[in-house]
Each structure stands twice: as structure tokens, then as C-alpha cells.
């Protein structure tokens, strides 16, 4: 493992401009529930350049404490992803896993409300291009198998996978496992049912030359590629993730469900990204053509331009909040809404 430097640098010296906000929807305003969406980001630096970590979580409908569940999931996700760039923290985490592995017993589904569950995943891409995950107890020395890349364009040759991106993918998967475990521990210590903390989770690692995203649930991540050499002005806008649905409109996956870690989707885009948006499902009907899961460009373009001119993320967040809480948005959705916008300038 190559040595990484970890420094927190402020946004202004990074290549990105950002704006992010989560607001309570009108349904929760009426019912007196808090906003159940949560988000967070961190900027780090490693020897190959700046790294942006993003996490976004959407607490389940009217689950009593899902706002806490969402916040905790975001916290743990960012902590896990940060460890990818901090050898000491990574080692500490691995030791923690080993300890828990030796102590834990398998828990039958009905009683999963309180116990900690350990899942350590290796991601493997099958020949058909499907991501498969397998449960295993991973030793610190084990390296995951090389994972093939996701192609952006027809005919684009997949570059051989570097160890660094491989490890990032494994940290993303660990973020989901650790977030789930944290919710189980929280349910235990607060003596509340695990399902009251139900939340989706999306996390992303953005570097100047690639984007890796993990998602569980019905949020969405949309990206715009940098135009290639000699291409016209704007790169293609595309959906990175697919909102996960059961058969029915009011079903999705949450961290608190048994066996749900198998459902985590992992996407690696090995191209420089011009702009990125992550959102919770409250905005999907406004931002995407749902039947084909395509981003609606007239929604995203003005928003990306707004984010690009945002010099102060704090003030930008306030303006974004006002937008998310505007009458014209609330006419179309009564759900909580989260949006994170990142533009490479």
C-alpha cells in the first residue's frame, strides 16, 4: 500500500466549487417530523492530488428516529472513506474488524434489532459485467481481486485497474458495512427498534481523474464528464447510479434490512468529471426522466452554473435551501429534499 498524506485543505485551494443543502419537506413540516435527510463532505489531499468525499443519506418515511439514523450513516461513511487516506486510521479500523469477527456470532434475522453484524466484502466483477459481492472475513494482508472498470463510452478501452482505486472501492463497501453496524449499535444503546433508524446511503469519492460511487436505496448521482480532446464544449450528462426500487413505488432498500449489503451498487468512472450532483429521492421526479433514469439537462445545467460561481459554500447553501423550499419545488414534491452540487473549475 502506497503511503498517503492526509491534510485537510479548504475548498478554495481545491479544484472544486460546491453547494449542498438538505431541507425538510412539507409533509414533515405538517406532521412535525424533522428533516430526515443528511449529508456531509470532506476534502483531503493525498500524494496524487485532492480528494473529495461525499455522503448523503435519506431516513425512511415516518420512521421515528431516521433523522438520527441518516446522520450517523453519513458520519460513519465519511470516517470510513477518510481512513482510505490515513494508514493509521485504516489499520485501527482493520483491527476493529478482526476483534468483532472473533467475538460475533451469526444472528438470526428476527433478532437483528440489537446485535452488531459483521460483513466484509470483496467486490468482483463477473464476465457479464455484473457486480457480485461475496461475504468473507478479510485479513489485513488480503488484497481484493482486480475489479474491471465500467465503460463510459462504447469502445473505450478499460485501463488496467490501479491498486489505489481497488482499495477505494473496498473502502466504499466497508463504509456501508460499518454504517449498518453503527446503526445496530445505536439501536442497542438507545434501546429503540433498528427499523426506526432506517436510512438509505450514497457515498462518493471524487478525484480529478475518476469518480467512485456506492449507493444503497433510491437516491441518485448524476455526473457530467469533462469534454475529451477536440470535443465540443460540454461533456455528456449521465446517471451514475440507479435508484433502487422493489416491484412497487413505495419500496426501496435501507441499511437496516437484513442481507441488504448484497444490494449495494458500486460504480467506477475512470474519467475526469466536470460536474457532479447527488440527491435524495425527493428531487428525482423533478430532476430525472424516471422511466429511463436519464438526467433532465434543463434541471442540472443552471444548477451546475450556480455551483461553479459559488465562492462561499455557506452562502451558496442558504440560497440552495431557499430553492429547495420554494413554492415551485414544493408544488411537485412534499418529501425531504437533499442536493449536493460539485463543479470542477
Amino acid at each position, binding site marked *: 500500500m502506497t503511503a498517503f498524506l492526509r491534510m485537510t485543505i479548504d475548498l478554495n485551494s481545491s479544484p472544486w466549487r460546491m453547494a449542498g443543502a438538505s431541507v425538510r419537506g412539507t*409533509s414533515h413540516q405538517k406532521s412535525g417530523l424533522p428533516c430526515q435527510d443528511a449529508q456531509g463532505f470532506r476534502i483531503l489531499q493525498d500524494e496524487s492530488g485532492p480528494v473529495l468525499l461525499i455522503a448523503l443519506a435519506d*431516513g*425512511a*418515511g*415516518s*420512521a421515528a428516529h*431516521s433523522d438520527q439514523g441518516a446522520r450517523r450513516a453519513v458520519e460513519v461513511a465519511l470516517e470510513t472513506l477518510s481512513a482510505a487516506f490515513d494508514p493509521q486510521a485504516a489499520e485501527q479500523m482493520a483491527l476493529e474488524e478482526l476483534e468483532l469477527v472473533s467475538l460475533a456470532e451469526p444472528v438470526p434475522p428476527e433478532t437483528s434489532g440489537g446485535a452488531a453484524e459483521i460483513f466484509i466484502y470483496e467486490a468482483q466483477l463477473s464476465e457479464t459485467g455484473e457486480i457480485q459481492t461475496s461475504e468473507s472475513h478479510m485479513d489485513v494482508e488480503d488484497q481484493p481481486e482486480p475489479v474491471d472498470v465500467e465503460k463510459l463510452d462504447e469502445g473505450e478501452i478499460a485501463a488496467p485497474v490501479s491498486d489505489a482505486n481497488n482499495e477505494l472501492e473496498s473502502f466504499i463497501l466497508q463504509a456501508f458495512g460499518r454504517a449498518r453496524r453503527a446503526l445496530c449499535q445505536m439501536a442497542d444503546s438507545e434501546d429503540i427498534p433498528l427499523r426506526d433508524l*432506517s436510512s438509505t446511503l450514497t457515498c462518493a469519492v471524487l478525484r480529478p481523474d475518476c469518480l467512485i460511487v456506492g449507493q444503497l*436505496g*433510491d437516491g441518485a448521482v448524476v455526473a457530467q464528464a469533462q469534454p475529451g480532446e477536440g470535443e465540443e464544449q460540454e461533456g455528456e450528462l449521465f446517471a451514475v447510479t440507479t435508484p433502487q*426500487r422493489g*416491484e*412497487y*413505488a*413505495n*419500496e*426501496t432498500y*435501507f441499511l437496516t434490512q437484513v442481507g441488504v449489503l448484497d444490494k449495494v451498487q458500486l460504480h467506477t468512472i475512470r474519467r475526469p468529471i466536470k460536474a457532479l450532483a447527488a440527491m435524495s*429521492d425527493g428531487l428525482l*421526479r*423533478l*430532476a*430525472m*426522466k*424516471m*422511466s*429511463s433514469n436519464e438526467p*433532465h439537462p*434543463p*434541471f*442540472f445545467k*443552471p*444548477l451546475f*452554473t*450556480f455551483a461553479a*460561481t*459559488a*465562492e*462561499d459554500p455557506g*452562502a*451558496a447553501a442558504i*440560497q*440552495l435551501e*431557499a*430553492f429547495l423550499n420554494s413554492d*415551485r419545488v414544493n408544488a*411537485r414534491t*412534499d*418529501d425531504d429534499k437533499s442536493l449536493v452540487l460539485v463543479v470542477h473549475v
Partner: protein
Amino acid sequence: MEPYLLDQAEFADNPEPRCPVVLALDTSGSMKGDPIIELNNALREFGAALKSDPLASLRVELAIVTFGNGVHAIDVKSGIPNETPGGGDTRSMMVRPKTKEVAFDAQQAFATVDQFRPPVLDAGGDTPMGEAIRRALDLIKGRKELYKQNGLDYFRPWIFLITDGRPTDRGWELAAEQVKQEENRKGVVFYAVGVEKADMNVLNRFSSNRAPLKLHGLAFGDLFQWLSKSLSVIAHSRPGEQAPLPPVGWGDIDTSHSDE
């Protein structure tokens, strides 16, 4: 920073997710008189209640299958316009409207609430309940296909059965098994309601998740008020919501099953 840019963001147009509901209604001879009158009144109020919920209006889709003198899919997209209170066309008050039928076709049989015209049903004949259930299941299957073809999301469909007797058609046991299995597969939500002399033991065969309910007297109005509120809850629900339905005040779980 340019906040006006946020004003320029345009929204995508997406169709609403749908909640398909088939009402399987007993119109056999024993329903003549007060029962069918009460049922018709309740259907009218049901339509009005759902229409007053803007989201339910766009999302809930209704189909009516009657059984009595055969099994029929009722045209719920036309018929008399809703009467305006204290006025309206006197002619329509004098002429008894004819209830039209449609083919058992998933396209024709369903109407979204905003297009729903409550029919006025007649009673007579026997009780081919088994066939009605089979038809209801087929309509739902067909509707799901249409949704998938058109890229529409949908909620779990409902079949709501109301009867005041017992099935007279052969092979109803098979239909009962079919709907029971479909419910266990989470393909449908099934409610059975018995009225007056309904055979509750028979109705018990149609579901393993939910006991049939016995209506208090002819309180169809209360029943359909509950149903409209429940469908509103579903229409508004999002992933992870417990979506509790309102309490059933209009009927009881029948505990008087004999050992059959």
C-alpha cells in the same frame, strides 16, 4: 454567486405512480332493495372523497367487476355526471341511467379517480364469485403489464371483495387458492367483506394473511369512507413509511367460524 440561476432550473415531467384497485362487488339477487341502493350511494361518495385528494386523484385507478347474473366489468369512465348539489339538469334526475359494461381489458376497465364516474348497479341472479376473482386477478396482471410497457411505477394493487352470500359457481375454491397465493407472493393486497348472510367460512379461504370482515348492517358508506382514506394513505406513501391505515370502524373480524 447568481441566485437567479436557481430560478432557471426546469423540472422534468414524470407520470405519477399508480395504485390500481379492483372492486369485486356482489350484485346477486339477494342484494336487491336496500343493499344495492346503499352500495350505489356509497360508491358515489367514495368517488367524491377520492377526488378531493389531489394526489389520490392522479394515482388511484379503479375498476369494478360485478358478479350476479354472470360476471361483468363495469364502465367506470362514463355514466351520469356527478350531480351538482341543489341544481343541475332535472332530466338526469328523472331518467335512470343505464350502467354500461366494458370488455375485461386492462386498458378499458380502469379509470384514474379524476375520470371515475360511479356506476349505478342493478342486482339479480346468482353469485359467480370464483369467476369474478379470477377476472380481477387477470385485470391486475394486465394492468401491471401496461405499466411496465409504459415505464410507470405502481403501488401494490388491491382487490376488494364484497359479498352477501356464498359462491354458486364451481371451481371457486381454485380462485380462492389463486388469490391467496398471489397475496402471499406480495402481488396483491386482498380484502374480503361479508354482508348480512354472507358465508364467512368461505371468505376465510381466500386469504391467509387477513381474516374476512363482517360489515355492520348495511354500513357501505362507512366502509367506502374507510377505503377512500386508506387509498389516500397509500397514494401518499413513500419508501419506508409504515403507512398505517385508519382503524376499521365499519366491521368486525368474524370469530364464529365452524370447523369446516
